[in-house]
């Protein structure tokens, strides 16, 4: 049984993603998403009961990645400059703080 995506589900997803959809966007998305989900149906025919999920390729190309727990002074020096430039790109700041609108009204 194919999953049917209705307007209510779409509204909920858009809310989760913090996107406000215009009526024409909703209409097109409903159609597109349904076609895409129908296409996903073909995965159902595969028996994957005993298959371990592959979460990424990092587990193949290398094992865990560690670094020594010490300050890299050269890198730190560079990063201080970068942090300054990142602060400059923030739309609103107060001192070295990022300023946002209130969480609650």
């Amino acid at each position, binding site marked *: 049984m194919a999953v049917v995506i209705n307007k209510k*589900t779409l509204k909920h997803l858009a809310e989760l993603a913090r*996107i406000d959809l215009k009526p024409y966007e909703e209409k097109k*998305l409903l159609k597109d*998403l349904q076609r895409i989900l129908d296409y996903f149906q*073909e995965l159902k025919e595969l028996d994957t009961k005993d*298959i371990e999920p592959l979460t990424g390729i990092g587990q193949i*190309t290398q094992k865990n990645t560690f670094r020594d727990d010490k300050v890299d002074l050269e890198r730190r020096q560079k990063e201080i400059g970068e942090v300054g430039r990142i602060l400059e790109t*923030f739309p609103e700041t107060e001192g070295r703080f990022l300023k946002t609108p209130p969480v609650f009204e």
Partner: protein
Amino acid sequence: MYLHDLTIKKFHQGLLNKDFSAFEITEAFLKFIKEKDKKIGAYLKVMPESALRQAKDVDLKIAAGESPPLVAGVPLAVKDNILISGESVTAASKILEDYQASYDATVIEKLRSLGAIFLGKTNLDEFAMGSSTENSAFDLTRNPHDLKRVAGGSSGGSAAAVASTQAIASLGSDTGGSIRQPAAFCGVVGLKPTYGAVSRYGLIALASSLDQIGPITKTVEDAEILFNAIKGKDPKDSTSFDYEKQQASGGLQDITKLRIGIPKEYFIEGLNPEVKAAVDRVIKDFESLKFKITSISLPHTKYALACYYIILPAEASANLARYDGMRYPRIKNQESRIKNLRDLYIKNRSEGFGEEVKRRIILGTFVLSAGYYDAYYLKAQKVRALIKEDFDKVFKEIDLILTPVTPTPAFEIGEKTKDPLSMYLSDIFTIPANLAGLPAISIPIRHLPKDKLPIGFQMIGRHFKEADILEIGKIYEAIYS
């Protein structure tokens, strides 16, 4: 000296012979871009001042007796999802329209220290989501071989720039074919390295278990040069690995003994007859060079597209959560409507993201949501394991895999924009290599007449075995040189 003849290799020789200076060539490229790019639309931004300054530095060093590295002075184009410090970086999205990079991506840092020159930033599908560069919020990139057709995507600008002599080579990024597909459409070489071979620090993330940066060039040899310049472990990207060490542990192969596998699942009904004929001819070329060619099967190939379009949106929806109007520039002229943080998120994301980006964020949110996670996301990860196993199995019998890059040559502008699924299908042959993390290269088929649209063939190698596909690629090119 003709710009269109220049490869990285030839440029380097010319520089050593003092046939020209880096400054002269950079100036010539900048002049040519001014004329040519009105028609093509490869660049979102050209950086003449910094490029000429970099070129002058290279010339000064040569004059002082330094011997220049292979990429020194080479005018490059860079996909606009890779950060160059102090320059704007948009990912072709309105949401980053006014954003300035505050640091160099590791690939840029490496190339900069070798003296490479950055001519400008190239167009792409918004956040690298697309196969035609039609999803860019800013510009349309046309195929230099036929202006009515797309350049491919998402690295369409980077491929078109190289194909139209607006750069000697370029950098792109490949999540499901975004280097190889536009390279094939534009008749240039594109390499997607092994997952983790090249640092992605400073690449705007799309899907982190799939993304790789790689070169787009005129020849396989150039792809090798550029790859060697950018590869290697980077402490700032924990998925990157020590390439030399991995390669050494694999041991060296006698190139002439490499066995080539042809997977039957890639020669399906929907394959355009011209593409099929062209790839068949490539196989014959290798046969006549006495390579051992074997028919193989990768039985889960047909599931790769569905698997990819679950995993990619899932990862993308998480990666793109950061564009919230807080740490990046805000969409203009709406301050009065914003009362709280939630409004800010919604206004910026609703107006800042384009149609395809919204579609994938919503789809990703869906496949990760409670109740659907197991049926979609977990299922896709299991299918991904099966696809990878297919490759593991065949690599016991053969050393590399030869396939078409795309089911058709470049399609017309507007042909697939209405139907996302038909657009997604143009990546069916390139996606499996990303899912399995394997290196893959797209090489233009050389025997085609000049007035035909370019067609590419793809070679997929084992993990860390870029050397195999690059060497065989060079052998192929030598037949036609």
